[in-house]
């Protein structure tokens, strides 16, 4: 039978039961390969459930460093009888099935075209451990041990990871090492080791770090100077606020007193969490909330207030599958329109699109800065794929000389010096007015903040000219934002490119790989990664410089395309959508196939050539 043979380039998928302790064992597996210098890209595929339902962990081993989801499974570690049939079906022909053969299974449950590797995991555990919980937990470590033999993972690397994890807990350390070798020794003695899939030490990880996007965004909020956070638990954003709590506890205590240089509130709902963040922003503290699509829906009225009253606030939207409750544990990029035009009336909001945890860190810090400079809500549009999976990415960096730019704030001295303070007056021609913090000056600088219309001195007014002045200035301000948001990143094709491709956010790693796949087929595509909204000038220029531009998105309705057509008046005929929206992360295979098929269908083949 065919055996898939690959070194440092394969996919292992673990099928587990939620709550069985498999997550840490599976992550150990991924980390051990990383420590051998071989990049990995793991993804959790989990249900909206705490215990009992199926959960999967898919690890892509990729020496080339392609961190997008590949698709296809070369080895299935099938530990969940509930999903057995589906899991078996997923294995590529010639791939491997690793399973627990403690109980005999009928032949009909297997496939002829996959290599079956059975190991009596339950039997080994029952013989070694008497405590039921230990039997369960160490079963996971035992299979990691067996895999280390099958895939040639260096056991010393795993032991080192144990040593780091169980520092000072000698008993735990030893029992884990014992379980690891129990599995490893069994495999070496009884199974054909190595299998066709092997890991070979390389040097392709470098100084990269391995972290999830939610933790990275939380750290960005710490570094960006957020001192108030209000949030309401919602998958997949809860771990962002929780990471912010953890980082603040460690790094934001006043040294002399131990008191907190931050305030975090778990609010009663999303309406309150955004209200609190806005109240803090109004009062001069950098503040943010983290949420997902349903939370954005609830916050929409307040977002309109912050837009119209011009209050800085940051929202990190960790997008999931919508609409409504949608797919709470699956990924999508489907909140763009809901965020870009949130709230009734004419509104437009600033959006940032991070591609990975590093950019979650950078852009969350930048969003806090931009919100104050622009005095408006700023959205960080991450998603479940980035937020809840550990990803190999550039290390974080910070310039210690950087001071926070608090934007246009009129101080006591400026007021005392006779500055004319009009809260909604455009002094510098960029559409951004000055504001004062409450309590600044006894006689000067107070104003009344409201969601109703007002004149440039913040006085209530429903006069048409005052309203027009106000909303056109807001447009001017939005225009100013074009140059302040992260600029797009262009990747020119190596050959002559007739087509362009626009993409953003978590599509990035799959796109990078797709471009290589296409180039190998002789299809050259220029690519531009959009990183902010309003769109920088270059985005339109890019589209106009290609007869056709693909827009790759993870939503059904081509939301970024809609924004491009609306905001940049681009003829829709120039834009070709590539849309992936089943809740799984987009793959390079999908993108490359869609683009290649489209190009093949629309390429006019010369008559002669077609005839031959």
């Amino acid at each position, binding site marked *: 039978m065919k055996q898939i043979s690959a070194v440092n380039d394969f996919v292992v998928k673990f099928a587990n039961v939620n709550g069985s302790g498999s997550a840490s064992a599976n992550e150990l597996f991924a980390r051990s390969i990383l420590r051998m210098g071989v990049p990995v890209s793991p993804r959790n595929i989990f249900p909206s459930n705490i215990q009992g339902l199926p959960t999967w962990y898919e690890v892509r081993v990729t020496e080339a460093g392609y961190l997008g989801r590949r698709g296809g499974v070369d080895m299935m570690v099938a530990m969940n009888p509930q999903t057995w049939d589906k899991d078996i079906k997923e294995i590529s022909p010639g791939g491997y099935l690793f399973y627990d053969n403690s109980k005999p299974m009928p032949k009909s449950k297997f496939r002829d075209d996959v290599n079956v590797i059975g190991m009596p995991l339950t039997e080994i555990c029952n013989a070694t451990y008497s405590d039921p919980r230990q039997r369960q937990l160490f079963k996971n470590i035992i299979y990691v041990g067996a895999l280390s033999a099958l895939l040639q993972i260096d056991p010393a690397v795993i032991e080192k990871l144990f040593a780091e994890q169980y520092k000072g807990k000698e008993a735990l350390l030893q029992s884990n090492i014992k379980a690891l070798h129990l599995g490893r020794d069994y495999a070496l003695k009884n199974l054909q080791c190595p299998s066709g899939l092997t890991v070979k030490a390389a040097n392709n990880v470098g100084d990269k770090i391995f972290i999830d996007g939610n933790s990275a965004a939380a750290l960005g909020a710490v570094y960006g100077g957020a001192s*108030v956070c209000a949030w309401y638990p919602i998958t997949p954003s809860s771990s962002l606020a929780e990471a912010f709590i953890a980082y603040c506890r460690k790094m934001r205590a006043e040294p002399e007193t131990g008191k907190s240089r931050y305030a975090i509130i778990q609010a009663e709902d999303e309406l309150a969490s955004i209200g609190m963040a806005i109240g803090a922003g109004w009062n001069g503290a950098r503040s943010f909330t983290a949420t997902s699509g349903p939370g954005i829906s609830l916050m929409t009225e307040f977002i309109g207030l912050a837009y119209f009253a011009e209050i800085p606030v940051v929202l990190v939207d960790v997008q999931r599958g919508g609409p409504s409750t949608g797919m709470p544990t699956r990924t999508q990029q489907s909140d763009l329109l809901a965020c870009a035009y949130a709230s009734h009336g004419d509104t437009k909001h600033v959006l940032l699109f991070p591609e990975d945890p590093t950019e979650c860190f950078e852009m969350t810090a930048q969003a806090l800065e931009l919100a104050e400079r622009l005095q408006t809500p700023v959205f960080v549009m991450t998603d479940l794929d980035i937020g809840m999976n550990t990803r190999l990415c550039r290390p974080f960096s910070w310039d210690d000389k950087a001071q926070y730019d608090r934007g246009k704030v009129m101080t006591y001295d400026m007021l005392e010096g006779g500055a004319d303070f009009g809260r909604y007056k455009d002094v510098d021609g960029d559409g951004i007015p000055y504001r004062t913090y409450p309590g600044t000056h006894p006689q000067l600088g107070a104003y009344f903040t409201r969601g109703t219309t007002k004149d440039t001195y913040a006085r209530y007014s429903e006069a048409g000219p005052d309203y027009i002045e106000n909303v056109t200035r807001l447009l001017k301000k939005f225009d100013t934002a074009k140059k302040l948001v992260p600029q797009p990143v262009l990747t020119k094709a190596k050959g002559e490119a007739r087509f362009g491709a626009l993409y953003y956010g978590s599509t990035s790693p799959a796109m990078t790989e797709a471009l290589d796949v296409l180039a190998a087929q002789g299809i050259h595509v220029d690519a531009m990664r959009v990183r902010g909204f309003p769109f920088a000038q270059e985005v339109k220029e890019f589209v106009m410089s290609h007869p056709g531009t693909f827009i790759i998105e993870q939503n059904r309705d081509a939301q970024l395309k809609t924004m491009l057509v609306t905001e940049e008046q681009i003829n829709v005929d120039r834009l070709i959508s590539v849309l992936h929206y089943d809740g799984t992360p987009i793959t390079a295979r999908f993108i490359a196939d869609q683009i290649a098929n489209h190009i093949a269908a629309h390429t006019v083949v010369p008559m002669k050539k077609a005839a031959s």
Partner: protein
Amino acid sequence: MTYLAKPKLHPPALTKNTVGYPRRDYEGKISTLCAGCGHDSISASIVQACWELDIEPHRVAKLSGIGCSSKTPDYFLGNSHGFNSVHGRMPSVLTGANLANRELIYMGVSGDGDSASIGIGQFAHAMRRGINMVYIVENNGVYGLTKGQFSATADKGSKSKRGVVNSDEPLDMIGMALLLGATYVARSFSGDKKQLVPLIKGAIEHKGAAFIDVVSPCVAFNNHAGSTKSYEYVRQHNEAVNRLDFIEGRDEITADYAPGETITVEQHDGTFLRLRKLAADHDPTDRVKTMNFVQEHAAKGEVVTGLLYVDPKAVDLHEHMNTVETPLNQLTAKELCPGSAALAKINASLR
């Protein structure tokens, strides 16, 4: 409303408080509410209370939601920052503002529509958290700005101006505040400034969630026969349980009253509240008994007013959260940003 603007120039003879302001400096824009509106009397009481407490006007932040009551912050303390937020959401905006700068005084003004209907959730949670604020509900049992619909505090059986009888149970905000952990709970009547001003002063000085339900008749839509929130009805059914003398500092306690007639409560900050008792069976430091007391009188159709409950040992949200003394909005990158060395360590731990 009145169209007569008051002159801006003050005669030098105006009495100034110890921080140097005449009372006129605590006023705001001219009210746009109806002549005779109870809300304007409450604004006047806020002006009086802040002036008498020698608070610098700009050290107060006044926040509101939407509705007639929520317009009033424009009509008092003209040199304070104000925030007219969205309907029913004043508590959350005020909470955030309070977190950002613990040094200001936070005055939340709301109505029965704004707080008891759309905003009941945020009202409840603000009380639970013990935010250091004055929460005034200007309660008239009716939606004024939208012309006369019942609000959630309208009494069962009361009649609207159009003659409709309300069949819903009223929402008891005093009862809820007591239940939810407000540490200063009072009720008053907009027409009784003598009672109301000291209650507001006590609430400002109280460290924690201070709630005042002020029955404030709507002259346009709820001041007719059959209404239980009319001037006439409230005057007839008002049952004051005590009179509050607000005292700053320790020295001013004098033994003017016979034993048993007064209760003196020392507050967290060393100030004293002295209550002249009008109801012998009411102890304002006992929360559970107060809940019973209020319910018993309500069942008899009486509107109990006065300082109903105070927890002198109350602490506020900042204390619960152990936040630094420096207002968070004054912290700079030096205090907030852990720097590149700490980041290098984090990077190392992620490899």
